[in-house]
């Protein structure tokens, strides 16, 4: 293997059979290249979907209401179900042991907010302190809404980073007053959200304040909770489903809604969706693996095929070499060493090229669903070795047989 003379002989043979060398290398390199790209993008999709779920807590259960579509207990359909503080309290009372965080929101979709001469339209959300964790909001400076803000219905606001950029133009917004519909609110914090501009373009104020200043009484728009997570994912999904179902039943009971009315009360269970999406991603990854392995098998068959042809083409040369005193094993060794060298070199080339392309193109991809495509280097290098091994094996059998042929038969071969 480390015989310099042998290597010289092999390099000479390879460089004088450029087309053959090139074709063998191409089939190996493209196989590895395609595998790397496929695996990279499958990882990218997984990353992208994961980051979509990072916008909010994954174990979130949220409740929205709408208009009834079915008559129930003498009440007509077409009734709007208005959630109240009391509906929220009832749910919390019943399920408190299973909940981590809880919030009730009252919001205005388009609130006019101004600071000095800058004005913009943003969503204004009255909320509870827990919402910070339900929304996965990160406090950049200052603080979030706290319990005393709620108790005293203080006119304080936590603004998203986008609003800070839009209105404050680099000024520190903490302790400044912004006007919401002309009313002064003191900015107490700035938050970031993995959801990006859409989520960062809102203002949080205490829900009690919102109900007062917007004359909402004890109305709320929606409520959201996070369910305590069991260690086991399947168990967590089952529990979160059970609680979501229980909450839905409870609210329907309070508001006298038919149990089978799906549009009046909607309970959205993120964990259940997450499970579906994750299994979808797993399926996509499995398909990519399948295609990738198929590509590798095609590459192996290609290498094997080329090796067969090479040996066939060189039968006469093998006869000549044997007539000149070559040992059978030196002939097998020569062909194998050539095959291993070419597949290894081409495999690594395809690997580096694929990784390089991912590295180069990855950051340029602007899609919410593909992020940071990358490949586990160990997996990639393992497939290269697998291909090299398979190529060597595919070359070994015909080479061994060719070396066994009597030189006189090999020489007769035209």
């Amino acid at each position, binding site marked *: 293997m480390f015989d310099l003379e042998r290597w010289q002989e092999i390099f000479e043979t390879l460089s*004088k059979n450029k087309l053959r060398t090139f074709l063998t290398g191409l089939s190996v390199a493209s196989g590895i290249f395609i595998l790397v790209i496929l695996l990279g993008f499958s990882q990218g999709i997984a990353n992208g979907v994961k980051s979509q779920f990072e916008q909010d807590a994954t174990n979130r259960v949220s409740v929205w209401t709408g208009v009834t579509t079915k008559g129930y207990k003498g009440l007509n359909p077409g009734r709007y179900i208005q959630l109240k503080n009391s509906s929220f309290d009832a749910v919390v009372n019943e399920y408190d042991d299973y909940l981590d965080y809880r919030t009730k929101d009252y919001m205005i979709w388009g609130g006019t907010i101004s600071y000095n001469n800058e004005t913009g339209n943003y969503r204004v959300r009255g909320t509870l302190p827990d919402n910070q964790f339900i929304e996965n909001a990160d406090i950049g400076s200052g603080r979030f809404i706290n319990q005393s803000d709620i108790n005293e219905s203080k006119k304080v606001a936590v603004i998203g980073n986008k609003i800070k950029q839009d209105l404050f133009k680099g000024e520190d917004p903490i302790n400044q007053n912004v006007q919401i519909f002309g009313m002064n609110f003191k900015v107490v914090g700035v938050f970031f959200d993995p959801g990006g501009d859409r989520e960062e373009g809102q203002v949080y104020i205490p829900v009690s304040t919102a109900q007062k200043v917007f004359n909402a009484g004890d109305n709320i728009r929606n409520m959201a909770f996070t369910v305590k997570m069991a260690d086991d994912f399947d168990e967590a999904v089952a529990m979160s489903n059970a609680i979501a179902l229980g909450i839905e039943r409870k609210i329907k009971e309070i508001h006298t809604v038919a149990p089978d009315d799906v549009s009046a009360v909607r309970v959205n269970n993120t964990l259940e969706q997450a499970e579906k999406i994750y299994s979808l991603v797993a399926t996509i990854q499995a398909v990519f693996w399948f295609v990738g392995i198929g590509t590798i098998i095609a590459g192996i068959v290609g290498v094997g095929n080329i090796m067969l042809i090479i040996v066939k083409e060189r039968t006469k040369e093998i006869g000549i070499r*044997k*007539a*000149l*005193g*070559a040992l*059978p094993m030196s002939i097998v060794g020569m062909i194998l060493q050539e095959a291993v060298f070419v597949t290894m070199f081409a495999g690594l080339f395809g690997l580096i090229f694929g990784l390089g392309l991912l590295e180069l193109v990855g950051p340029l991809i602007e899609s919410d669903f593909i992020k940071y495509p990358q490949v586990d280097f160990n997996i990639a290098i393992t497939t290269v070795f697998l291909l090299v091994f398979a190529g060597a094996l595919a070359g070994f059998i015909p080479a061994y047989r060719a070396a066994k042929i009597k030189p006189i038969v090999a020489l007769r071969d035209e």
Partner: protein
Amino acid sequence: MIQIKDLHKSYHMGSNSLHVLKGINFNVKEGELVSIMGSSGSGKSTLLNILGMLDEADEGEYILDNVPIKNLNEKIAAKYRNEFLGFIFQSFNLINYKSALDNVSMPLYYKGVKRKERTERAMHYLEKVGLAQWSHHLPSELSGGQKQRVAIARALASDPKVLLADEPTGALDTKTSYEVMELIQGINDEGKTILVVTHEDDIAHMTKRIVNLKDGLIIDDSPVEQIRASAHV
């Protein structure tokens, strides 16, 4: 140099059996130039292949330079071929992607000679056959006569005991044939033992002894007056 006793060889093709050599006896002394003649199917090429250890006899005794050649495994056969024998083929059998020089140095590679010495020795033999200035040409860039001379240089490269030539002039025109024979005679003059298989009378008469084969038996074995090829060139 070569002693053969009662050599038999059959080929089996399906249910048919073809008895090619039916008991060959002959000896070759060192420095002889022998031609083996016969019509096609007489067994002359089979005999040469057995002498060259490219093929094995079914029965009989073969002693080469006092070494009995029998029950060879591939490894020993390869070693003997490399040490004892040099081959010259009708169709030259040069490796087409290697230069003349590399072709000539091939037996030395398998003998384990280092690259530098290999090149020097190969160059020496190319000079001997008059092709020094063609050393870096591929076989495809050489004429038939030149190719055969490269093949002769290659056969000589490992300094074998015996040269075996199978129809060395079969693919060449008369003039080139005589040039090749002149070269072979010259090598023989230096003391190398050479066996030539041919079916051409004029080529046979340029050797020193003609062995005539017919239907797997030697029917005539007699020394001849050697005609120098140089007289015809």
